[in-house]
């Protein structure tokens, strides 16, 4: 994870998620692994994760950082009803993403808006690129 991937692998990941949508229905007591699908972007100061969590509000999702590992947990609840078609995800999920740079744990921000969870993880000061002055003697 977090090796810069060639774009074709990104496309495979996307296809994989489409398969998951059909085969990983009903998480039961908790799916671990690659749900929810997430995009990760990086700039010099921070990582930005966007995860696809349709239907969830901030009360249904939790985000936890332990060292360099970020864990997203949540649950897709389903009302009892008579379903004539049932394709959307149900049940609990958990996904851990591990970063190669140390993170500024106290500055992490997370928000859920329109079914997209956005987590902004600033890198720790020591992980940011820094220019070294060269002294001539």
């Amino acid at each position, binding site marked *: *994870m*977090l090796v*810069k*991937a060639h*774009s074709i692998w*990104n*496309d495979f*990941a*996307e*296809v*994989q*998620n489409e398969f998951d*949508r059909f085969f990983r229905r009903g998480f039961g007591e908790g799916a671990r692994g*690659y749900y929810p*699908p*997430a*995009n*990760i*972007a*990086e*700039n010099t100061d*921070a990582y*930005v994760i*966007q995860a*696809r*969590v*349709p*239907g*969830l*509000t901030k009360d249904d999702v939790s985000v936890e950082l332990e060292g360099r590992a970020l864990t997203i947990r949540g649950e897709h609840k389903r009302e009892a*009803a*008579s*379903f*004539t*078609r*049932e*394709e*959307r*995800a149900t049940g609990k999920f958990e996904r851990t993403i591990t970063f190669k740079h140390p993170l500024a744990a106290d500055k992490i921000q997370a928000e*859920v*808006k*329109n*079914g*997209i969870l*956005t987590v902004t993880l600033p890198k720790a000061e020591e992980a940011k690129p820094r220019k070294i002055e060269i002294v001539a003697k």
Partner: protein
Amino acid sequence: MFGLQKKAVENEAGTQTTATENSVTYVPAVDVTENETGYTIFADVPGADKDSVDVTYEDGVVTLKANSASAKQVEGAQAIHREFRLAGYERAFRVGDDVDVDKINAEIANGVLKVSLPRKASAKKVISVSAK
């Protein structure tokens, strides 16, 4: 009562995965529930909001369209890992005669589009039989 209505254009767009971000159209996952008062469609359209959805009814077909491009993350960050796109969604459903098309309504919350299709007020009529 519901059948997936596939249009030629939707097919072309839906299978196109290597094109630029905005030209991809997903077929959203849906749940459909049914009770005495009518049918309800729940479609996963994460990233879409009220201004980017469009629900239309024409010739017995309800079409749901949405776009999530506005949820894209901040500029200036470089994507290093990608598993989904913030793109368009489109799916169409054939609607039965028992639905009151004038009362179809739609709402969106937390990236889920909910379309309610109420049944027509009871179409049941008792016809009296007269004896001669």
